[in-house]
């Protein structure tokens, strides 16, 4: 880690092809700033992205990166971090990636509590495929494939995380740059799986969940001095509140023990611990 890392060191020379005004610009800037601010070096950082607009982030950031298969960013990211606890791992994906095709992986990544950060760029729409409903779209949100709306309630990703035993649950808004950065920073610093759902508006296909909507309706938990993120019951109340949407850190388990500590994973896996059989011959002898 070097102290003179600037957030622009995480930026590649590729110009994003996101639509002008897309929330993903702000989401990515906040991620890069948070990484730099927490003392991470791009050479020591691994970014895993899924598919869709959010998936392009691996191209626009310049760290070690893998742009994989739709919905499978989390398993790849966990594999990297489990094998190399010394590497900073950040996974980015969209709402379809995380809560639809990859929902199963999300639940189990949360349970596994690998020490990494998961940023979901939630725009409540499928953008790159030109505007179909996503698992977080409202039930009456009309799209090309759901002409009368999905007619099913949206997933509450925060509640899904809570029910899966999350150790860190937060939500931010890409346009509130400073707060977004702070929240991602806290997720990075958390010892365990730091999950941040980021409202990252789609200016082309979503005319409901817009910048204006979030600006007018989002309640910042920081302004609610009573909210203690270490209080599970308080977290539950905020997460399950169907009347309001919040930004901030909802829940943080102070006693979180990340995967590598629980499993005693050492950083150099090529070293065989003393006393262990170091090749097959020792093991084979047992079968006489």
């Amino acid at each position, binding site marked *: 880690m070097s102290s003179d890392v600037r957030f622009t060191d995480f930026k590649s020379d590729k110009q994003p092809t996101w639509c002008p005004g897309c929330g993903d610009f702000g989401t990515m800037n906040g991620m890069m700033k948070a990484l730099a601010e927490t003392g991470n070096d791009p*050479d020591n950082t691994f970014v895993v992205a899924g598919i869709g607009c959010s998936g392009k982030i691996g191209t626009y950031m310049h760290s070690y990166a893998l742009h994989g298969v739709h919905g499978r960013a989390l398993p790849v990211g966990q*594999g990297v971090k489990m*094998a190399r606890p010394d590497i900073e791992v950040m996974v980015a994906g969209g709402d379809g990636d995380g809560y639809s095709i990859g929902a199963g992986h999300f639940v189990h990544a949360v349970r596994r509590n690998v020490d990494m950060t998961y940023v979901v760029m939630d725009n409540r729409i499928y953008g790159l495929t030109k505007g179909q409903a996503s698992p977080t779209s409202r039930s009456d949100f009309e799209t090309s494939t759901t002409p009368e709306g999905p007619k099913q309630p949206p997933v509450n990703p925060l509640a899904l995380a809570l029910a899966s035993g999350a150790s860190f649950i937060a939500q931010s808004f890409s346009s509130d740059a400073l707060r977004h950065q702070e929240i991602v920073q806290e997720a990075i610093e958390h010892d365990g799986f730091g999950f941040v759902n980021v409202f990252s508006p789609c200016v082309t296909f979503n005319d409901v969940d817009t910048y204006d909507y979030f600006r007018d309706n989002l309640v910042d938990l920081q302004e609610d001095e009573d909210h203690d993120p270490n209080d599970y019951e308080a977290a539950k109340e905020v997460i399950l509140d169907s009347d309001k949407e919040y930004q901030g850190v909802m829940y943080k388990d102070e006693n979180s023990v990340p995967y590598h500590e629980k499993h005693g994973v050492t950083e150099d896996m090529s070293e065989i611990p003393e006393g262990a059989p170091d090749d097959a011959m020792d093991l*084979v002898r047992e079968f006489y």
Partner: protein
Amino acid sequence: MSDDELIWRIAGGSGDGIDSTSQNFAKALMRSGLDVFTHRHYPSRIRGGHTYVEIRAADREVQSRGDGYNFLLALGDSFARNPQEEAFYGNEELKPLSENLDDLREGGVIVYDEGLISDEDVEELNLEERAEENGWHVYPIDLRGLAKEHGREVMRNTAGVGITAALLEMDLEHIEDLMEDAMGGDILESNLEILHEAYEMGQDLEFEHDLRIPEGEHESEQALLSGSNAIAYGAIDAGCRFIAGYPMTPWTDVFTILSQNFPDMGGISEQVEDEIAAAALAVGASHAGVKAMSGSSGGGFALMSEPLGLAEMTETPLVLVEAMRAGPSTGMPTKPEQGDLEHVLYTSQGDSQRVVFAPGNIEEAYEQTRLAFDIAWDYQIPVMLIYDQKLSGENTNVDVEFFDREPSPDLGSTLTEEELKEAAHDNSGKFKRFDYENAEDGVAPRSLPGQKGGRYLATGNEHSPVGHISEDPDNRVYQMDRRLEKLEAIREELNEERESTQTYFGDEDAEYGIITWGSSQGAVEEAVERLNNSGYSVKGLSVSDMMPFPEQEVTEFLESVDEAMVVEMNATAQFRGLLQKELGRFGEKLTSLLKYNGNPFEPAEIVEGYEVNIAEEDREPTAQVRIEPAAGD
């Protein structure tokens, strides 16, 4: 049929300890100096249901199950369904006896537990009559009563082993030693008591049979291993320290063995939510610089097609194992078949860019697993090992010295931080991870996270030398050709620098050929020997390299014979199809012998198949096999 060998079949219910009892008896036979080979037949059920294990033991190498068997120990099924359910399940108590009579050789021995199998039931079987016809020698013994008297009912397996040993005039020493290793206290004492009691009871019987334990001697230290053991140990010696998986029969064995050993070795084993995640975690771990693997059986492997394709496109070193079972879909979960060849070769979108090996026996399973890791990390390509329920579960004795080899944990074509400084970078200083200009054999060396100046994007999209998404037509062709060039280089390395992974049997000058692949190798080997002993002129070839295909070796073999029969365990002759696709000729020379009833080939079925098929004897094969004629016939 020669009875210089013992083929002991222990039959009972699932959950009755048939597996562990047979494992120890096989070890006792091995310790007495014999070569052994075991074959498991079991249902997909936890408690109850007919199951058996066959142990073939002889004073010579045995690489296959035999033709039928000559000693049946029929225990009852203690988890048999109650009589109300009999209409559906049949008489499960009787099955260990009734289901096994067809394969018993003439002059064979039957010991059955009359404590669990009733006289009336036996009468219904016409056992007496059939025994007379076939020269069988039947010894009804109350094994259950014996076990109950000296210990507990479940110990009737031990009583059965005691009777077996007495009837075979086999010394108890090794059986006792193995029991002492496996148990202690009261349980050991009761079991030993039962063993001795049964042994004495057996000695007092009036012997009507001729079968005795063969005599043999090993010159070196032996161990009884399964194909799953061999694959797991091959991975350990190749330096693999990461496995992620999801349980599925029969792949679970490899996953279990590594899960039990990795924690002691500083490695990681993780059971994950599904097979997509399993292979994707291994892709991640491989990117991080650890030798990683995953695997499954057919249905689970279907889910891996996404991460497999990702590994191909991102050139991620990776080893996946696929333990075939009978398909399609759930198929027959505990039965072997070689029906996933095409699935493994071609699954996932786009042109296949992978290596596939199919080991033919336990030694090959170990060696080809190591080879898989070597090639995967040297060439940055996913390598698959395809085997089946048969090779996975069968146990044979192997020289312990065979495993006396140096581990090979190195990461192949991975750069050190020093080497990375010298490697190609573009004008803006980006590492050209996918450089096609300087790639030797198509391989562009890779960096690892944490290394200075080695950052790059690995993407499942087509990409430029620095890893950026690119749809430039020239770049596309360069990158595709470079990736495919690796397969040619691998073929060349296998041909020239390594010992052939193909196995040949019989006389080089023989007129006719039998070709097989994977785990049918042992049965073919034995069949070729027998055919030659009966005066036919036959040689055999067992192919392990499925992709890249050993074109030259197979062509030479086929050119040297008049006709060849392809032996495989599936219904659509997948390997024969591969041969003809890869070689583009020989259609008129190739016929097929196919078996897909859930049981592996017996050597006699291949002998008969050859006689009917190639020697053109005018009759139908008697076994459940199918013959496919040559093109144009």
